[in-house]
């Protein structure tokens, strides 16, 4: 029945590997099952063991081990399963791409988990446009997906946090709640709820068919399998690319056609991530948590943005911080009041209007916000601002002296 098993490539760091998630794009249900084989039926223990031994981690950003998350639902009699495709992150498009062009893989993963874990309800939460088109079509093509309910996600940065997803599925505003309790302990109507990123679900669908060993044949021990990356900014061909785990920053940029012009840094891990300078040494760093720890960055949801050398890093950081500050849900004080204050100080610095004590002032504000609030939004934003100050520290000094090394853009440094 399996006519085309995706052939695993022997991984050498940096070597390309054959696409897995992106191997069956635009396949209808008949073609999908013909090429991948039928979806196996797994018992709860089998699913957990398979996920754990594959080393699969959540691809929504937090990189929580999928095996552990599934294991914590084993004791529950009734559960709820939610596929999460809400990419609040403006620079991430991989979940939408999966829903648009490989919806059957995502549905496979959700049905597999629900079937094994006694899932009474299955939801797919994502951008309304893609739910109404390709997902609706895919659901209509197969008998087993009749009960999957589609829930539209608002276009807001925090709408994809798992506690916000649980709220949205219950018909409430998609705002984060405090954690604990974790959603897999108490989620939709108090039931243990699996909130799974759709890329993670798609990987599960392949692991169930081809096994944990196959999954590990791509990637490294630390970052097994493949991972979707949205590579954008100053690259020749911005897009979504599937790379083996542990591929280097260079590989990611090369996959997108290489730099479109001279680069100075990459923003890795998205708006809650960190800047990594682009130089001959750092560009060889693997996209892994341990290698990027020094930069407060992580592969996260696979976002890589290339910042060209002609742009001011402080300006870029201040713009992202202003966006993030505006995306606070207005629920918790530190986030609601602290983030706009911090973003305003960074803006003043980017405009060249800050005094010599600006570093102390920002540090004081950031320490007040870091680690507080109900969700990870304040801490993530603090991480981005600190990374901006650290990576572009020379630029901070120049701005304090009234200069900017970037090519003059009208109105950029007012002095």
């Amino acid at each position, binding site marked *: 029945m399996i006519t085309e098993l995706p052939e695993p490539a022997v991984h050498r760091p940096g070597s390309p590997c054959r696409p897995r998630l992106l191997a069956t794009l635009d396949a209808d249900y008949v073609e999908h099952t013909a090429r991948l084989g039928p979806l196996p039926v797994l018992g709860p223990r089998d699913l957990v063991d398979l996920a754990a031994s594959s080393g699969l981690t959540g691809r929504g950003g937090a990189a929580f081990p999928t095996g552990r998350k599934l294991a914590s639902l084993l004791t529950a009699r009734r559960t709820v399963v939610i596929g999460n495709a809400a990419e609040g992150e403006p620079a991430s498009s991989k979940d939408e791409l999966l829903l648009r062009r490989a919806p059957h893989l995502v549905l496979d993963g959700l049905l597999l988990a629900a079937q094994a874990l006694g899932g009474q309800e299955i939801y797919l939460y994502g951008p309304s446009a893609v739910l109404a088109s390709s997902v609706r079509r895919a659901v209509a093509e197969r008998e087993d997906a009749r009960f999957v309910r589609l829930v539209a996600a608002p276009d807001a940065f925090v709408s994809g946090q798992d506690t916000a997803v649980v709220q949205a599925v219950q018909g409430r505003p998609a705002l984060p709640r405090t954690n604990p309790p974790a959603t897999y302990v108490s989620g939709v109507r108090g039931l243990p709820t699996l909130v799974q990123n759709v890329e993670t679900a798609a990987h599960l669908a392949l692991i169930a068919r081809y096994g944990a060993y196959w999954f590990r044949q791509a990637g490294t021990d630390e970052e097994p399998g493949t991972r979707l990356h949205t590579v954008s900014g100053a690259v020749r061909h911005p897009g979504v690319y599937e790379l083996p785990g542990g591929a280097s920053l260079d590989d990611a940029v090369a996959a997108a056609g290489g730099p479109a012009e001279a680069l100075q840094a990459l923003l890795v891990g998205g708006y809650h991530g960190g800047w990594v300078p682009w130089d001959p040494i750092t560009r060889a760093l693997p996209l892994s948590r341990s290698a990027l720890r020094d930069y407060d960055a992580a592969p996260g949801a696979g976002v890589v943005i290339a910042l060209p050398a002609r742009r001011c890093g402080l300006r*870029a950081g201040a713009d992202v911080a202003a*966006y993030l*500050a505006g995306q606070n849900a207005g629920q918790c*004080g*530190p986030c609601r009041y602290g983030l706009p204050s911090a973003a305003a100080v960074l803006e003043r610095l980017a405009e060249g209007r800050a005094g010599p004590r600006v570093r102390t002032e920002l540090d004081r504000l950031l320490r007040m916000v870091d680690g507080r609030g*109900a969700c990870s939004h304040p801490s993530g934003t603090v991480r981005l601002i600190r990374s901006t100050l650290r990576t572009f520290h020379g630029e901070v000094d120049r701005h304090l002296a009234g200069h900017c090394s970037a090519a003059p853009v009208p109105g950029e440094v007012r002095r």
Partner: protein
Amino acid sequence: MTMTLWYLGRGFGVSALVLLSMVVALGMAVRAGRPLPGLSRSAQQTLHRVLSLTAVQVVLLHVLTLWADPYAQLRAVDAVVPFAGRLHPIGLGLGTVALELVVALVVSSLLRRRIGLRLWRAIHWLAYLFWPLSVLHALGTGTDRGAPWFQWTVAACGALVGAALTWRIAHRQDGTTPPRPAPPRELAGLR
């Protein structure tokens, strides 16, 4: 020694009232639709937190010193059961209720992550009740209630809270959120 405790207890009481008025006023102002001139919202919030924790300590000192003082004739039960006091049972009782509210506010704030936002907010609303209770307690039992300086102090506290309330109502949050900045164009991914 005995007179020292008595004076200290009264002093802590008046100090607590002043501090708490500032806490309540700041708490109301920070929720208004517009920040106070010259004080950013995050600064107001920090001040609210620091002052409220200071005020709680002063309230505890107020209770402990008067409890230790023989003249006030406070029993341990008066700190828990309201309206059972020997001297000024009504005024003292109001103070007891206020003290219990303080305990509820502090404990619920410490447990905020455990009890959830909704319950925490419901309890925190009780803070509004706390201020009139402590004013009535001050006017009901205060030894100095007849002294002009005391009356002026209470009046000033009332004016402060009244002003904050006016500001809060005048600049009500109208539900329209300020425009949110778009993600920077060159860093907005494939959009």
